[in-house]
C-alpha cells in the first residue's frame, strides 16, 4: 500500500486490525465481518505498527516471550536465540531493550514475525530504519510467509521486490 504522508495508510491498517472504528463499508475475514468474530480473527492476525511494542526495562528475551504469549505461544529459548541471530541481533537476548540502538530495536520488534503463527501480517512501514541487509532479510521473510499461503498487508515508501509472489499494489490518494 502506497500513498503520500497523511493520506491515511496507517488509519486504514488500524481499521484492518480492528483497532480503529470503520465509518462505512466492512472488513471481512473468511467471509465474515471481523467485528463479529474478533477473537478468531485476532488469532490469525499479527500487527506491527510504527511503535515497536518493546518494554525498555525488560530484556530482549522477556519482550519476545511476552509478545509471543499475547499470541498464545510459548517459544523455546533455543528458538528465540535462533530468531534473534537470524535478525542480526545475535547474543543480545539478555540485554535490556533500552541499551539497544534504534535499528536493533526495530529488528527485535520485527523478529516477532518469525515467532508468529498468524496467517495475516499487517505491517506499517516495516522497512523504515532498516539497513540494506535488513530490508533484504525482511523481504525474504515476507516472501517465505506468502509462500506458505500467508497474507501480508504492508505500507512502504520504497519499492521493495518481495519476489515472484502475487502482490497487489494499492495507491491511496487524498
Amino acid at each position, binding site marked *: 500500500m502506497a500513498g503520500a504522508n497523511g493520506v491515511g495508510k496507517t488509519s486504514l491498517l488500524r481499521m484492518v*486490525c*480492528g*483497532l*480503529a*472504528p470503520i465509518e462505512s463499508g466492512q472488513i471481512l475475514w473468511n467471509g465474515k465481518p471481523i467485528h463479529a468474530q474478533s*477473537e478468531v480473527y*485476532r*488469532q490469525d*492476525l499479527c*500487527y506491527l*505498527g*510504527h*511503535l*515497536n*511494542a*518493546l*518494554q*525498555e*526495562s*525488560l530484556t530482549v528475551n*522477556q519482550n519476545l*516471550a*511476552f*509478545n*509471543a*504469549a*499475547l*499470541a*498464545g*505461544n*510459548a*517459544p*523455546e529459548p533455543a*528458538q528465540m536465540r535462533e530468531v534473534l541471530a537470524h535478525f542480526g541481533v545475535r547474543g543480545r537476548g539478555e540485554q*535490556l531493550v533500552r541499551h539497544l540502538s534504534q535499528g536493533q530495536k526495530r529488528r527485535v520488534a520485527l523478529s516477532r514475525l518469525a*515467532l508468529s*503463527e498468524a496467517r495475516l501480517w499487517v505491517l506499517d512501514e516495516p522497512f523504515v530504519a532498516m539497513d540494506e541487509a535488513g530490508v533484504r532479510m525482511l523481504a525474504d521473510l515476507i516472501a517465505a510467509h506468502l509462500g506458505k499461503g500467508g497474507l501480508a498487508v504492508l505500507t512502504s515508501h520504497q519499492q521493495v521486490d518481495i519476489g515472484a509472489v502475487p502482490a497487489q499494489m494499492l495507491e491511496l490518494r487524498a
Partner: protein
Amino acid sequence: MKKLGMLSVMSAVLRREVSVAMRQKGEVLTPLVFFVVVASLFPLGVGPESALLLRMAPGVLWVSALLAAMLSLQRLFATDFADGSLEQMALSSTPLGLLVVGKALSHFLLSGLPLVLMAPVLGLQFGLEGRSLGILMLTLLLGTPTLSLIGSIGAALTLGVRGAGVLLSLLILPLYIPVLIFGAGAVEADAAGLGFGGHLSLLAALLVLSAFFAPLATKTALRISLE
C-alpha cells in the same frame, strides 16, 4: 511451539509487570514512602494527644493508603500506551478484559500489598491495639484490590490526556468512598463492641462486584483510548 491457555497469558502479564517493577524499584517504593510520610504528618498536625490520635487512626491510615494506592495508578497503562504494547494487548487472542485483570492484580501486589504490610507499623504509632491492627490489616487486604480494580477504569479513561493525574483523582476518588467508609468503619465498629463482620462482608461484596465489572469497563475504555 507450545500453546498457552488464557490464564497463562494473564499470568504472563502479571509476571511482566513484576519484572518491570523489580528493575524500577523506586516506583514500587514511592507509594509506600508516601503512605508512611502522610500518615506520620497527622500526629504532627493535630498534636500528640493520644486519645484523639487513637480515635482518628483507622480513618487516617485508610485515607493515606487510598491516596498512596492512587499515586501509582497513572502509570498502570501509560508506558504500554506510549510504547505500543497496549495495542498488542488489544490485538491479543486472549480477551483484553482478562489481561486487565492481570494488570490490576499486579497493581495490588506491587502497590496495595506493601501498604497492607506497612499499616500495622504505622498503626502502632497511633497507639492501636493488636486486635485493631489485625482488623485494619484485614480491611486493607480486602479493600486495596478493589482500589486497584476501580482505579484501572480511571487509568484507562485518562490515557493520553493532558493533566491525567488530577483528572484521574477526580474520577476515581468518589468511587473509592464506599471502600473507605466500610474499611475505616470496621475498626471503630469493633471498638464500639458492634462487631466488624458486616463491614468485612460489604468490603468483600465490593471486591466481587468490582472484580466482575471493572475489567469490562476498563477494557472498553482502553479500546476507546486506542482508537
